[in-house]
């Protein structure tokens, strides 16, 4: 059975899980954290991803990318002021696409997200000792079509086939439902780094059915950080009215301090900070009290509770009918968040599951099911927002309503306005409002190849299919002639098929280069370590090796040094191996063993 892992691709952190012999668990090496911060940093030697990127961020702010998930499938207009808070640079590309500019290069959010997925995949492969090709990837339930497509494209760029995209709260419900074996209505409150979702599921026997879902894809812990950062700015400007914070270093410094203040206030009534701005050398000390933090974020928590009311209405349930409230996402550890949830639902939330891991574990279980490992439960999910088309006067005509169980299919018949018209353009939108100006433009479908007929005579049946991933595909047939109309999709916020293929081709061409580059860096570092080892043990070598042997070693060190200047990783490896052979007699003593250990460590990398 082919393994399908589950990946929680989060705004702040990402992690993966799978089903082992003794049950589902996150994939982690002994002693190492399974969590990969969703941060990447461009350096002279390529991408750093995860913890290293996070650490190097403060010295390399404009090349350090975080919260990329918030940019997925969005445009500049929608992101608004958020873009200005980012230390890295966003530029507008073709159509309404956005890209991140790093030095000379521009990257789509999909490509950057792929770097995180690559890292997660690589770590999982190292732990499991097998290659991974397929994954279940989770997205916020309230992600629209463009955001889902963007996620799927990111996976393709990372060399992963998406077996399924599932909603984060639903993944959590799978883990919870299978664990607790309870029946009834469960509300999953998921407040992560950048998104908020509330979903209501009905658990009955083997079936977990999502009844309704609501949320906000631009609200999360990030915004709490921003509120704290803004409060810090205000405090500083009170003392020093001329202080500015627009440079990347200051932005990141404020963000990181705000983050640690927020974290500390989850278990302490106050948090003291000491800021030192590298550019100006200005320093500020102070104390942040939990009351102030709570009043800063209370409006945002209220917003999430409004979504809760909304979703209850959609589900036609009274709050008393909710049997359990399950919390998911790092931001739900904040005490005030828990308190407000408890008073809203009238019962304490279920906190036995780890809010950081539960989504990945649910995705891992779902992956196991898809791979054929079990079939004792079924998840029935919904499409979060209605899909429809623009009709006369800019009104939005819904074709598939929100909260419809997926997969779903609906057809709509179109005709022509003019004699012999052979094409029709249809604008596709997603949303819950009456007018298209209040909905999300997904793209334009151009129907071509309609047989020439009198106006109003052709009957073009357009079939809208939402698959089990919540992703829309459209096909069309002219009913009178039976001829299939061609459909060209122009996504407004996503990549076209052509663009996707080009990126994949480019990355394939670069993949070999990238691999060589990574190895080259590693081998150079190994060589440096080996040199240091040899120099340290040279006294011993003088005693235990003949003059001839010592000369050979010196000569070989020179050859390694020359290969280090070159660009060929394999050539460097050959020279390093030769050096290893020559220093083998040194293994008789302790320091020599140390050198050899360095060399062997290098071999295990290959």
């Amino acid at each position: 059975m082919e393994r399908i892992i589950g990946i929680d691709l989060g705004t702040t952190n990402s992690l993966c899980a799978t089903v082992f012999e003794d049950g589902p668990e996150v994939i982690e090496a002994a002693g190492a954290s399974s969590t990969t911060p969703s941060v990447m940093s461009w350096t002279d030697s390529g991408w750093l991803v995860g913890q290293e990127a996070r650490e190097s961020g403060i010295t390399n702010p404009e090349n350090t990318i975080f919260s990329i998930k918030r940019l997925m499938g969005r445009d500049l207009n929608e992101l608004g002021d958020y873009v200005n808070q980012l230390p890295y640079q966003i530029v507008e590309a073709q159509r309404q696409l956005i890209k991140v500019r790093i030095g000379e290069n521009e990257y789509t959010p999909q490509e950057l997200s792929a770097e995180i997925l690559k890292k997660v995949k690589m770590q999982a492969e190292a732990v499991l000792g097998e290659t991974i090709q397929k994954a279940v990837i989770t997205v916020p339930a309230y992600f629209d079509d463009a955001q889902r497509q963007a996620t799927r494209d990111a996976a393709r760029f990372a060399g992963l086939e998406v077996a399924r995209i599932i909603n984060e709260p639903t993944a959590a419900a799978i883990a919870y439902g299978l664990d607790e074996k309870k029946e009834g209505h469960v509300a999953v409150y998921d407040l992560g780094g950048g998104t908020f979702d509330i979903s209501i599921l009905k658990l009955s026997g083997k079936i977990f059915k999502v009844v309704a879902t609501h949320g906000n894809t631009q609200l999360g812990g990030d915004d709490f950080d921003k509120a704290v950062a803004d409060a810090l700015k205000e405090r500083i400007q009170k003392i020093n009215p001329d202080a500015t914070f627009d440079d990347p270093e200051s932005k990141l410094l404020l963000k990181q301090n705000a983050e640690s203040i927020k974290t500390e206030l989850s278990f302490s009534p106050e948090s003291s900070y000491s800021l030192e701005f590298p550019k100006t050398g200005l320093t500020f000390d102070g104390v942040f009290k939990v009351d102030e933090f709570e009043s800063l974020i209370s409006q945002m928590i209220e917003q999430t509770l409004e979504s809760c009311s909304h979703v209850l209405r959609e589900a036609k349930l009274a709050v008393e009918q909710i049997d359990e409230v399950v919390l998911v996402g790092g931001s739900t550890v904040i005490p005030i968040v828990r308190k407000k949830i408890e008073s809203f639902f009238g019962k304490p939330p279920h906190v036995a599951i780890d809010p950081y891991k539960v989504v990945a574990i649910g995705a891992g279980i779902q992956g196991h099911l898809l791979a054929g490992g079990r079939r004792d439960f079924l998840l029935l999910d919904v499409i979060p927002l209605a899909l429809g088309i623009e009709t006369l006067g800019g009104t939005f005509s819904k074709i598939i309503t929100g909260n419809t169980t997926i997969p779903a299919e609906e057809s709509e018949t179109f005709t022509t306005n003019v004699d012999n018209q052979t094409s029709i353009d249809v604008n596709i939108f997603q949303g819950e409002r009456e007018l298209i100006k209040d909905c999300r433009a997904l793209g334009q479908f151009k129907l071509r190849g309609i047989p020439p007929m009198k106006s109003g005579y052709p009957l073009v049946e357009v079939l809208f299919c939402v698959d089990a991933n919540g992703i829309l595909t459209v096909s069309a047939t002219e009913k009178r002639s039976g001829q299939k109309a061609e459909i060209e999709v122009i996504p407004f916020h996503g990549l076209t098929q052509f663009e996707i293929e080009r990126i994949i081709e480019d990355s394939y061409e670069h993949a070999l280069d990238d691999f060589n580059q990574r190895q080259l860096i590693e081998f150079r570092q190994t060589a440096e370590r080996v040199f240091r080892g040899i120099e340290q043990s040279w006294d011993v070598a003088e005693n235990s090796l003949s003059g001839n042997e010592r000369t050979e070693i010196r000569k070989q060190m020179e050859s390694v040094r020359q290969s280090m200047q070159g660009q060929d990783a394999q050539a460097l490896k050959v020279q390093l191996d030769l050096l290893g052979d020559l220093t083998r007699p040194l293994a008789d003593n302790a320091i020599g063993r140390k050198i050899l250990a360095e060399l062997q460590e290098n071999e295990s990398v290959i």
Partner: protein
Amino acid sequence: MTSPLFCFSCNSLQTIADNINYFEVLGFPLCFEIDHDELGNRYQRLSLEMHPDFFATAPEKEKRLSEKSSALLNAAFSTLRKPTSRARYLLSILTGDKRLKSDTLPEGFLQEMFTLQESLDELLESGDETALSGINENLQGRHTDIESDYAVLFKKFETSPENSEILQQLQTQLNSERYLRRLLDRINTE
């Protein structure tokens, strides 16, 4: 149970016939009254066989068939589950080629709705909760009455299928339902 979408004895998806209706999908006769528990059970049983999650490693053709069958099953279940959508669907099948007037309403209904609409506007403006819940209750009651009329009318049609006037009455009921629904939605969302 049997369904034309899935063969339980050979355990495989079946090709979807062109003119299949939602009642057939779930193995029910073409009849308004339906056993709700049984409807739910059949939906679950079929979902547990046909959902694309169980065909993730199947050949592309079978995968697509499972998507299509499940989409049809989902549409059938959600339509048959609620009385109004079930009535509307059944009416469209029973009407067939016959022509019904699409905009009929009971006498005085429209005038009554306008009056209700006006007082609703005022109440939403003033935020008079007690009066609002009064109107809400009144509308809910009317709505329930309409929904219970469907069964009576469909039953009548069963005994005299030549009387297409009954179908027109159903159409009238469904039209009134739409007005009531809209007003109820307004109260509940604002």
